[in-house]
């Protein structure tokens, strides 16, 4: 079992503490360029929440245009408003492109892996910090160049080729207003994000493999850690492809200027294409290639954006229902299965793209099969709630929302897994509805729950339940009001990315529904301010939380809240799995922490025979 020598770790750990006890770290080292995984996590969290607001308001701009086309757009209209107070169509394309970009690259991926991964991994496996603290710091600070370059992209007019950046629209500067330097900046920024998350994933894998506390066998790891682990693997394997594709695209673009001026490869650019009376392109590239490369990353990325939330929700549900997770191993296995299958389904984004139709069949089957592990997880979550003692607090609500929204997102996925049906709904609002149900409905509700759940561990204070519930209610209602009707829009044949769908007669009658959607979207958007308020006010005025406010089992709950540098008073020793709620072994309380030693020792953990630590009976279902 690959665990660091506890003794060594302990000593190391202690003199660490003494060391730090004596002289305080400078402000910069403590709060800015901190190598403490908790501080980095909080930095990630705050940054991503900020970006959440940015991306959200971009989305509101999109919604405004769809509800009241060419009307004076508030804020955006004033800030970048073009002639006549109405926005221009290319500004609209920029809006949704940057919305997707910000939300995916600057919010969801970093908030899961960056914020919660960073915070939870060492705490949950009982390590004093990440394996590579400095690398960890860098992975946060590499996000800022990305943010800077995205900002620069705005400055140059904003990349406007969609977040998928299909060539030739994105490859030829003449093709679109946003395809000039804005696109270069976009590509550079995405590369930086890639570097950032790559650093993260390497760090997570190493930490999880090497730094688990004594007794923390693989099958005693909380599902959060499982999901983080698998996510890290996904990233490590998928990201290089995107980075490579990004560079290929950069080299394809002639107007790079400077040292790269001469390169002007044509990986994606076919010859003889004349865009807007510019000189015809040379060199037989293939635009389809980009789609393959891009989706080879971006489909796994969908799971990068989902799995950690799944893991965290599993932990939270168990804690909130006071009940062991239902089917721990199937949960872990299905996580792995999703990750594995996730690598061979990218083609389902390309059913209409003109790739060999025969390929469509294979991708269809694999895509449909990936629904299976998702289904298993869903049933297991319901099973977890089944027979539990449920307290309807904000955490529970968000977790249940996660499950139910994930069901909707998963089921609507079956439509587009079926190729012939996908032919019709591809690139319509049905797709928009689908991935918002998965990425927002599922992931973000999971994140909201996780914030509420681990906030006391982060800041030593509880978040306001009442505000949390209001926020949840408004968000949930606004969310469903916003995205559920989009299924219908899609079935009605409304394509995505239309600045003004209503010039097409068969879409005119959808305007009222779009207006309704926008109203809901604005409600949802404003509701997020409540979260922000709740967050900051709770930091100052929240009620004090002890070490284990939720009576949860995880290792992280034996650490002080907030945990000091080095996390634990002494190296924790793990005796059982994390889900021993309502265990009959203890009287008077319905939780049994992973680190509690209970004589007499029971039979060995079936998970791994090599474990030298005594373990509890039934730490895993057998």
């Amino acid at each position: 079992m690959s665990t660091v020598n506890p003794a060594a770790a302990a000593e190391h750990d202690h003199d660490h503490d003494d060391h730090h006890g004596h002289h305080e770290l400078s402000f910069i080292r403590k709060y800015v360029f901190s190598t403490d995984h908790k501080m980095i996590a909080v930095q990630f969290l705050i940054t991503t929440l900020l970006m959440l607001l940015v991306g959200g308001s971009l989305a509101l701009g999109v919604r405004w245009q769809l509800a009241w086309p060419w009307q004076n757009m508030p804020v955006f209209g004033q800030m970048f408003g073009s002639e006549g107070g109405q926005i221009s169509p290319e500004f609209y394309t920029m809006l949704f492109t940057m919305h997707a970009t910000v939300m995916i690259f600057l919010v969801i991926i970093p908030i899961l892996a960056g914020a919660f991964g960073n915070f939870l991994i060492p705490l949950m496996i009982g390590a004093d910090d990440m394996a590579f603290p400095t690398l960890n710091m860098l992975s946060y600070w590499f996000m800022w160049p990305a943010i800077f370059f995205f900002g620069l992209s705005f400055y140059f007019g904003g990349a406007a080729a969609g977040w998928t950046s299909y060539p030739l629209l994105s490859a030829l500067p003449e093709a679109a207003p946003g395809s000039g330097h804005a696109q270069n900046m976009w590509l550079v920024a995405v590369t930086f994000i890639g570097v950032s998350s790559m650093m993260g994933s390497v760090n997570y894998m190493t930490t999880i493999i090497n730094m688990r506390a004594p007794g923390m066998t693989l099958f005693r790891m909380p599902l959060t850690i499982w999901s983080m682990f698998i996510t890290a693997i996904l990233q490590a394997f998928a990201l290089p492809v995107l980075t490579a594709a990004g560079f290929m695209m950069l080299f394809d673009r002639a107007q790079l200027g400077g040292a790269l001026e001469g390169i002007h490869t044509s990986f994606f650019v076919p010859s003889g294409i004349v865009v807007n009376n510019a000189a015809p392109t040379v060199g037989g590239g293939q635009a389809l290639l980009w789609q393959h490369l891009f989706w080879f990353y971006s489909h796994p990325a969908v799971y990068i954006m989902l799995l950690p939330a799944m893991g965290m929700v599993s932990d939270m549900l168990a804690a909130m229902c006071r009940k062991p997770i239902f089917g721990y191993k199937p949960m872990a296995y299905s996580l792995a299965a999703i990750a594995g299958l996730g690598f061979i389904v990218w083609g389902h984004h390309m059913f209409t793209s003109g790739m060999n139709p025969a390929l469509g069949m294979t991708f269809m089957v694999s895509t449909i099969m990936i629904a299976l592990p998702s289904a298993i997880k869903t049933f297991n979550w319901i099973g977890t709630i089944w027979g539990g003692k449920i307290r309807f607090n904000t955490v529970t609500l968000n977790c249940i929302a996660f499950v139910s929204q994930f069901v909707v997102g998963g089921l609507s996925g079956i439509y587009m897994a079926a190729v012939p049906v996908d032919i019709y709904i591809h690139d319509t609002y049905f797709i928009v509805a689908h991935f918002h149900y998965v990425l927002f409905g599922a992931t973000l509700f999971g994140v909201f729950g996780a914030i509420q759940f681990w906030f006391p561990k982060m800041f030593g204070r509880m978040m306001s339940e009442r505000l949390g519930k209001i926020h949840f209610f408004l968000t949930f209602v606004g969310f469903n009001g916003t995205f559920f009707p989009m299924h219908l829009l899609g079935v009605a044949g409304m394509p995505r990315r239309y600045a003004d769908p209503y010039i097409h007669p068969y879409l005119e009658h959808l305007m009222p529904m779009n207006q309704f959607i926008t109203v809901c979207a604005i409600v949802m958007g404003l509701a997020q301010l409540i979260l922000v308020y709740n967050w900051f006010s709770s930091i100052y005025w929240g009620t004090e939380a002890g070490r284990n406010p939720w009576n949860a089992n995880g290792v992280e709950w034996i650490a002080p809240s907030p945990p000091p540098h080095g996390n634990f008073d002494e190296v924790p020793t793990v005796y059982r799995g994390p889900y021993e709620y309502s265990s009959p072994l203890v009287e008077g309380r319905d939780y049994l922490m992973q680190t509690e030693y209970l004589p007499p020792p029971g039979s060995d953990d079936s998970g791994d025979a090599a474990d030298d630590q005594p373990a509890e009976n039934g730490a895993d279902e057998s």
Partner: protein
Amino acid sequence: MSRIFWCLFFTVWPIIAIVVCAISPAMDWAFPGNREAATPLGQRIDDLFFLITGIVTVTFIGTMGALSYVLWKGSKNEDEKGWYSHGSHNLEVIWTIVPAGVLLFIALYQLDVWAIYRVRDHENRDVGPRPSHLVAEVTARQFEWRIRYPAPGTKFTTYKQIKAWLAKPHAGDVYAVNKLFVHLNRETLIYLKSADVQHAFFVPDLRVKQDAMPGQSIDIWFTVNKSGKFNLTCAELCGWGHYKMRGEVEAVEDLEARLKELKDLQDYDGVTPPGTVPAGASEEATP
């Protein structure tokens, strides 16, 4: 109190969702014009759609029902501990096998449609096109559809001839923009090209969608079996004017005559003896 509220909350919203879907056809939120597809294949796609909808609805009701049930029970669970269970192996097996079966069924059931839609014809291209084919070249560009028909009366017997025709403009070609005429009840074979960036040829009423890739000539075929005009839109982001690409596909009985008309229009030299001057010829010029 709040317990009941939240239980109801999680019970009611799925019901609302289902109701909304149920009334959607009545509210004209379903397929365009609430019409069935205008191509036989499209109708099969619709059937598939409704089949999946059926399965999905059942699953949805099931899951949501189960969820609300366990919530209801769990939230009014009075004993001081929850049910200490790590799951059930049998259940796991059941809810692995059953969904797998259903999913596999969906996967296999639809293969046929897809095969007809693209793969099968795609495989045996060596057979010549059926004489009933209308061949047309549709070139998408920012932001319009440029259409080229072979001279009226042209009959292609081999794909080689078609390729030759596609290769360069020919005398007597008929040009049009944004309005595509197709045979009624006969197969239409379209070669889709892009003059600049990627577009997508999307005719909702026909359930036809195909991306136009720059540098490629992609063939799509369909048979319209309902006369009328169908909206043609672009479904792949193609620049700032993406939404401007409004076109129309019209299925007509006598296509030859219609093409002839277009041709006359196109050959108009301003002094054609009165009577044969096509309507609006003085104003219209073909692109």
